[in-house]
């Protein structure tokens, strides 16, 4: 057997340029197929892990998918807010263990700013783990200490990207920034008091401030216009507000954790029947499933395209080897003369094309993992997707097995041709 492997290797090496090309074509097809599949798998895992500790997301009535996307992944923006009274009411419900208000709208160099309370730091879970601190501490409670209003906590990615440390000062931007107006909150510089450890969740990309601090920055703003541009109004602004007066009147969303997850449906029903405000309570898992249902069509067509490309690459290997077989009749006759049975030659050719396909599959997989490894920062910060390069698993493993089966089937064509030719030619192949 080892003799045949060595022979197949030498024979293939002598035709390495043609074979390298088909190997590359197999690699590219595998790269496409596995890339799509793995991104899909990793995206799903990252998205569902990002919210593993939250039982309900509450927001103004509307689209559940939208609520989840903007409140958790900071994708898109809320079109309406919910009243603060809803949050107070939820917090008082006996089944609710914790409730974290979420206020969105500002940004810091493109990173979303989350106005919330310190409860978030103790209750939020990502990948089943609580938040850890690399530096500093949570922001304080402005009710106890009015300085806490100008305290800010950074997600790992934000701190890394701008090289911020505890003690640094920064200025947030109203809205997403980039507009023609001067929309910086430079009248409210904030001090970094803590930096979170990386979690892989969208929180890594966010800047967290007190709800009261968030409100303080927006004192005097109306219709998205900075009070600085209204000179007379700016002069009339109180410089230090009383924290008790800075409770916001509305919120973007509320994250809710329950004592007992089994009560999630009854709590949801209760929240959605609050009289004052039409609210919606969303189970993150269910909302994600709805989102995947929408994305599925696109994903599936990508996977289908990947599969077709892969199959066509395998067929091209078979075609190239099939055509090459006519040029190898002499080689087959020499091996026949030395006593090799036609069946052995079938195996010999099969071995070669299977190895070519296998090499293509392995290279394609390796390149896909290298690319993911290289792009993992971009994928995490830009899309919130934590990729896990490494050995194949789950869906990828099934695809690899399927690809290999197709490779063996395609390889049977040139092998069968070799068998027929060696029977037909015997020791006398047609002169070349």
């Amino acid at each position, binding site marked *: 057997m080892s003799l045949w492997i060595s022979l197949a290797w030498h024979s293939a090496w002598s035709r390495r340029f043609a074979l390298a090309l088909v190997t590359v074509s197999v690699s590219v097809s595998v790269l496409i197929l596995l890339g799509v599949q793995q991104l899909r798998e990793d995206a799903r895992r990252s998205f569902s892990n990002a919210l593993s500790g939250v039982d309900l997301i509450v927001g103004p009535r509307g689209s559940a998918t939208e609520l989840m996307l903007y409140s958790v992944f900071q994708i898109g923006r809320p079109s309406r807010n919910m009243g603060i009274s809803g949050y107070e009411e939820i917090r008082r419900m006996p089944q609710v263990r914790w409730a974290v208000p979420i206020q969105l709208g500002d940004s810091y160099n493109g990173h979303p700013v989350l106005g919330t309370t310190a409860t978030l730091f103790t209750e939020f879970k990502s990948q089943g783990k609580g938040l850890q601190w690399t530096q500093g501490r949570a922001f304080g409670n402005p009710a106890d200490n009015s300085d806490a209003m100008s305290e800010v906590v950074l997600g790992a990615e934000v701190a890394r990207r701008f090289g911020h440390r505890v003690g640094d000062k920064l200025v947030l931007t109203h809205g997403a920034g980039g507009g023609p107006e001067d929309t910086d909150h430079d009248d409210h510089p904030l001090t970094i008091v803590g930096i979170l450890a990386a979690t892989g969740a969208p929180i890594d990309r966010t800047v967290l401030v007190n709800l009261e601090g968030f409100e303080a920055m927006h004192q005097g703003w109306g219709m998205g216009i900075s009070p600085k541009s209204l000179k007379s109004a700016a002069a009339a602004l109180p410089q230090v507000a009383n924290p008790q007066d800075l409770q916001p009147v509305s919120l973007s969303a509320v994250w809710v954790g329950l004592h007992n997850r089994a009560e999630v449906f009854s709590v949801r029903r209760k929240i959605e029947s609050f009289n004052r405000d039409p609210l919606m309570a969303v189970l993150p898992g269910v909302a994600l499933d709805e989102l995947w249902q929408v994305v599925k069509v696109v994903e599936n067509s990508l996977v289908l395209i990947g599969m077709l490309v892969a199959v066509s690459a395998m067929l091209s290997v078979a075609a190239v080897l099939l055509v090459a077989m006519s040029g190898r009749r002499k080689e087959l006759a020499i091996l026949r003369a*030395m006593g090799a049975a036609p069946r052995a030659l079938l195996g010999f050719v099969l071995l070669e094309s299977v190895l070519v396909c296998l090499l293509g599959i392995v290279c394609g997989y390796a390149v896909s993992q290298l690319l993911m490894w290289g792009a993992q920062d971009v994928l995490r910060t830009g899309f919130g997707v934590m990729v896990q390069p490494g050995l194949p698993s789950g869906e990828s493993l099934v695809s690899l097995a399927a690809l290999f089966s197709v490779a063996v089937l395609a390889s049977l064509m040139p092998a069968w041709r070799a068998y027929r030719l060696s029977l037909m030619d015997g020791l*006398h192949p047609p002169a070349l």
Partner: protein
Amino acid sequence: MSKSAIHLRALTHAWTGQPPLFQIEELTVTQGKHLFIQGPSGCGKSTLLSLLAGVQAVQNGVCQVLGQDMAALTAVQRDRLRGEQMGVIFQQFNLLSYLDVQANVLMPTRLFPSRAAASSRAWGSPADQAKALAQALGLAEKMWRQPINQLSVGQQQRVAAVRALMGAPELVIADEPTSALDDARQLEFLDLLLHTAEKQNTSVIMVSHNARLAHRFDQVFEMHAGGHS
């Protein structure tokens, strides 16, 4: 009576729907003796060699090769007989271009352990026999590691002869092995081949259209197109 390398009787062969290609009443070659087969193109010389080598199945008549009735063997058994106890030399392109000289020469002993064993019994190892044969056939040792395409046609034919003789097969079948060579080189090659074969009691059966080579053989067999021989 000494053993016969081949023994044919009333052997005929025909392509489907056509008259017999040849009919051989009787032909016997004693083990160790050499046979020269000559005849015009199309008289079935190559087909006869294919029958002797066991590549084609016998249709009619007796075809005994190295004591085996070829008609009674399966295709795989015939392949095995060829691999273990025969050597084959073609007119040209005998060698696998992607292997060097040494690897080509050692192929038969790598394919069949019995052949390697025979080689080791008489010469110590297949590599030693290969060296001895190469020397006998006038191949320099520095060629050993050369790729095939750097050799001249004459050198390639000698390498093919070394390969055919590896493991001391009882029979070497040669199909026009000299016709790609210059006239002057033909006899030289033939003498080296026959002489070396004799030393290990190998019978050589050779087909050629060049009748001037016939006198070097113990036996000459003439074939005629379509007819009796």
